């Protein structure tokens, strides 16, 4: 593990910790975007170019903005008048994050036995990813597209219903 991997891991973990510990909600959202960017850089460090760039495009470019809008349009964006940088429930946040990490880590470590051992780093090009998506994984792709369509229609219906109610 080179020095760069350690630095990127520090950035990602720092962003995640800040997201859990800070008081101001929008600061937390920006810290989680930093964690996403750190993850993308880790993907790039592992030579997974497509995954890294798509992580930035989707997570930082869309999911982070979604989170920020959700915080803005609800009440939690009001700034706390008393000082202090850390939120009063920081211990609960850390405990929950550690518990989720433990569960996911246990699941991943238990399933490692089913994977084949790779001896060399496979060089994956975008063309191979495309062919796999259109060939072997076309059914999950279509199911995900259907799910996104359902979510979009649901969002439109929720927003439209509000407008009719107000008038």
């Amino acid at each position, binding site marked *: 593990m080179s020095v760069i991997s350690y630095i990127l891991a520090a950035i990602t973990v720092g962003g995640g910790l800040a997201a859990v510990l800070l008081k101001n909600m929008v600061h937390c959202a920006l810290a989680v975007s930093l964690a996403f960017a750190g993850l993308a850089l880790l993907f790039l460090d592992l030579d997974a170019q*497509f995954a890294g760039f798509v992580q930035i*495009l989707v997570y*930082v*470019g869309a999911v982070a903005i979604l989170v*920020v*809008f959700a915080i803005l349009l609800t009440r939690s964006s009001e700034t706390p008048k008393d000082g202090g940088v850390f939120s009063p429930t920081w211990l609960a946040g850390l405990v929950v994050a550690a518990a989720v990490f433990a569960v996911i880590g246990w699941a991943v470590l238990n399933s490692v036995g089913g994977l084949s051992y790779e001896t060399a780093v496979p060089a994956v090009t975008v063309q191979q990813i495309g062919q796999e998506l259109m060939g072997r994984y076309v059914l999950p792709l279509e199911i995900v597209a259907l799910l996104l369509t359902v979510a979009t229609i649901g969002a439109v219906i929720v927003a439209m219903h509000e407008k009719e109610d107000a008038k």
Partner: protein
Amino acid sequence: MVERLDQLFVLLSHWLVSFLPAGLQQAGGILIGVVVIVCLYPALFAIAVLMERKGLGRMQNRYGPNRVGPYGILQPVADGIKSLTKEDIVPLSADSAVHFLAPLVVVVTSFMGFAVMPMGRNMVLVDLDAGLLFYFAMGASTELAVFMAGWSSRNKYSLLGAMRAVAQMISYEVPLLLSSLAVVMITGSLSLTKIVAAQNSYTGIFPHWYIFTPWGFAGFLMYAISTTAETNRSPFDLPEGESEIVAGYHTEYSGFKFALFFLGEYVAMFSISGLGTTLFLGGWSAPFSFLTWIPSWIWFFSKLMLSICVFIWLRGTLPRLRQDQLMNFAWKFVLPLSLLNLLVAAMWRFLGDGWERWVFCSAVLLVAYVVVGLQEMRSDHFGPRSYRYVE
């Protein structure tokens, strides 16, 4: 001789790097490329700002700035000195950390786009296999910085301007990506150097640029509309128009931070025009086969500055679109047409060579344009005015 003029900057960079020890040479080459990009594009920014003010002035039947140098040539120097020496005012209740970071993030993500752009033959800083994806990833990061700027100013107008700007940028990002996707489909690669190389051949004297095909022409028009909206330029500049919302998300920025926002906006304009020339206008290839003796980088920068002139022309000519007109236009007109453009590009590829594919593809696109346009213009029903109040 022509060859050496074409590769002038590459040879210059190799000569400079040869003074370094062998281990540092690759890093030295990259460093030279980065320094050139960071110095060149702000210089072009100064020229573009001057062109804009003079050009807009002439279009509005007045002179532009003409006091500072002969014909106002030194106006950008005066602007730079002013922005450096102005007092930097930060509102008392503003979130100072985020307020400070927002212009930095805008400028950094705008400059990152140049890393994958081929500015001449063999003149690309990083030749990524997924270059186009990297470019759009950097563009997506700019939106978060715009939101940071608007929210941290603790100003209602800034927040409103930032939310409008982000909504507009997200809405137009989809047609932007879809119109670029047609180019990727036909070329078969996401790498920008391969896309330029695919356009670098000639039949007779005419080039094989993608803009000279039906799907390429429609794609270029939609790409141009989407880039004008992505960079918040007129006629899509509701988030930052002075008469609408003071100055939108950069209201509370003064002095050099405002200059950084301005720089970021123009650099984003340059990089997205550069991407447009790479995808549709053939990048660094010459327009006619008898003009290939002119160096490739001259063609790239000429096309880039031509795109900037078209942006300035649009700004001086068209009125501003209202927010709901803007969003309707994106989701109901440009997006369906860009999806249809993908289909037409596929038909182009599979109909084989010959005159049939020209006629068929052009006919499909024209009919769709007329039908969707008429549909959109018809569906404005104006009833009695209704009010919605905040509960």
